[in-house]
């Protein structure tokens, strides 16, 4: 029998002090950027009614972790922050409150395939900019995505941008039956490009056929757009991407940007730009985002929206930041000086020193040994007010 109480369930984990500190530093660095862009933090319940999440996923790829409430209603642990914020935006705010600018750093919960090393509880840091549908909003969101990844310490990442209307419009141009269109879009969404090529085989429009067959390779710098531009009639989404590129280029962000025309994201979620952040060393994207102007209206209020989320656990995998060590102290005292020592230690803490009490050592010498093992910088003896400097191995009088 497995002693369950000794283990964590699959897909969840403990964060011990060092990792915890690294994680908090990354989160704080990202939060600082969010704040400077004038976004406000929002907190929401850890679980919601399951219906909140139903508007985003398909039944086939159900990912919520569910449980029942006392009255039998179906609840779900928060699987995605975007529909939750859409619920709030639609129910709490009015037209005159727009635009809404929220950020969050929260844990998400999803069912994942067993035994594949995937977390079922993981942290996302993200933003939503709601009530604005303009190129300025899209640009700001992409700049914010780049700035937050830079602040988190991720290096050499790329933001791959696409537009969800591009594929929809070329399928319209190909004059396909609705059923076939959906089949193709589904295959693209499942990244099954063998199936896309098969479905595209008997499309008469040669240009569209070419694009569909090339789709997984339509990744790269701005020339990708030029490559297909003369093959489509409706150039609006391509022109939009080009426009974004020119602006980002003038602002010096060119090196972070790639284009990727073969992405639509999950079906029926995005309505404009879609972007993903990629970096070497992770098996999946590190940042997902895009425009989703149709989501908030599912909660009863029409509202444009654009946003992204950074996968903090993926960032932790690739950022090897050094945790900065603060100067630290440990205090030693005999019983008769206990009150005095506690008072001095408290005084130091109030002044901002990091000092721990010694609980286990019976002598000053053993406290020094303890300090060496624990990488503590100074040992204070409150019996004779002397202080030992562990690094320089010398003794001095202690004076605040």
């Amino acid at each position, binding site marked *: 029998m497995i002693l369950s109480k000794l283990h964590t369930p699959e897909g969840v984990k403990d964060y011990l002090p060092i990792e915890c500190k690294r994680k908090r530093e990354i989160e704080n660095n990202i939060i600082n950027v969010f704040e400077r862009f004038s976004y406000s933090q929002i907190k929401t319940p850890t679980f919601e009614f399951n219906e909140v999440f139903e508007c985003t996923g398909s039944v086939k790829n159900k990912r919520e972790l569910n449980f029942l409430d006392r009255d039998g209603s179906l609840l779900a642990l928060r699987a995605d922050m975007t529909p939750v914020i859409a619920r709030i935006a639609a129910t709490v705010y009015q037209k005159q409150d727009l635009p809404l600018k929220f950020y969050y750093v929260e844990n998400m919960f999803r069912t994942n395939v067993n035994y594949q090393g995937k977390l079922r509880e993981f942290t996302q840091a993200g933003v939503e900019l709601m009530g604005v549908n303009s190129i300025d909003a899209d640009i700001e969101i992409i700049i914010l995505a780049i700035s937050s990844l830079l602040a988190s310490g991720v290096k050499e990442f790329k933001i791959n941008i696409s537009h969800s209307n591009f594929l929809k419009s070329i399928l319209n141009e190909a004059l396909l039956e609705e059923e076939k269109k959906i089949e193709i879009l589904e295959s693209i969404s499942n990244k099954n490009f063998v199936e896309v090529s098969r479905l595209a085989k008997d499309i008469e429009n040669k240009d569209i056929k070419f694009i569909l067959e090339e789709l997984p390779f339509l990744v790269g710098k701005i020339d990708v757009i030029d490559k297909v531009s003369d093959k489509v009639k409706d150039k609006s989404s391509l022109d939009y991407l080009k426009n974004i590129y020119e602006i980002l280029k003038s602002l010096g962000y060119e090196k972070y940007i*790639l284009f990727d025309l073969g992405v639509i994201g999950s079906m029926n979620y995005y309505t404009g730009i879609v972007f993903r952040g990629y970096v070497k060393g992770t098996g999946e994207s590190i940042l997902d985002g895009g425009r989703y102007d149709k989501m908030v209206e599912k909660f009863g209020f029409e509202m444009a929206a654009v946003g992204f989320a950074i996968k903090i656990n993926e960032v932790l995998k690739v950022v090897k930041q050094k945790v900065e060590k603060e100067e630290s102290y440990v205090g030693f005292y005999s019983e008769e000086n206990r009150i005095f020592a506690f008072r001095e230690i408290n005084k130091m803490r109030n002044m901002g020193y990091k000092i721990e009490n010694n609980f286990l050592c019976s002598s000053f010498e053993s406290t020094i040994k303890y300090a060496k093992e624990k990488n503590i910088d100074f040992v204070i003896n409150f019996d004779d007010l002397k202080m030992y400097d562990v690094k320089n191995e010398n003794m001095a009088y202690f004076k605040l």
Partner: protein
Amino acid sequence: MEYLTFALAKGRLAEKSMEILEKIGITCEEMKEDSRKLIFINEKLGYKFFLAKASDVPTYVENGSADIGIVGKDTLLEEGRNLYEVLDLKMGKCKFAVAGYKEIKEKLDSSMDLVVATKYPNVAKEYFYTKKKQTIEIIKLNGSVELAPIVNLSDVIVDIVETGSTLKANGLEVLADICPVSARVVVNRVSMKLEYERISKIIKGLKELVVD
């Protein structure tokens, strides 16, 4: 230059995969030697190769341990992983089929308590539940699935069929085709985006060599 790593499904498919990769200049002399090595490197060209059990290839590619994998569509269908499926190599062709004794054929379409033995429970479910809208009982086996109907463990089996000779030798036959199967090139989601130049060159090279 960073290494591009290939995960190949152990066995005949790996040999065939290396043959076709060699034709586009992706070689690995180390692999031809008989050794106990698990990973093979072509230092000069910047490639790494490893062999894995077919059903594990999608796992390595999904997690980014390998950039590119070559594996049968049967495995992809069963494992259902999140990765790019970019090329049908049209090698190792066979099919998924329902097989059993001829006499069971009537029961096949009407029965709501059909017992199906298979190594591929997800494929069986997809076919019977989604496509045929039929409820069945699945028994998962790990090999020699043909045995199941013979010893009365199941009514039929769902398995890959190449020539059908094993079935025939045991008095069984194909009762229904599910879908064709062949070797596929799969690519990790991040590699597809960050190594697009090298990877698209490889895929396009291979594409020209594919014969129907």
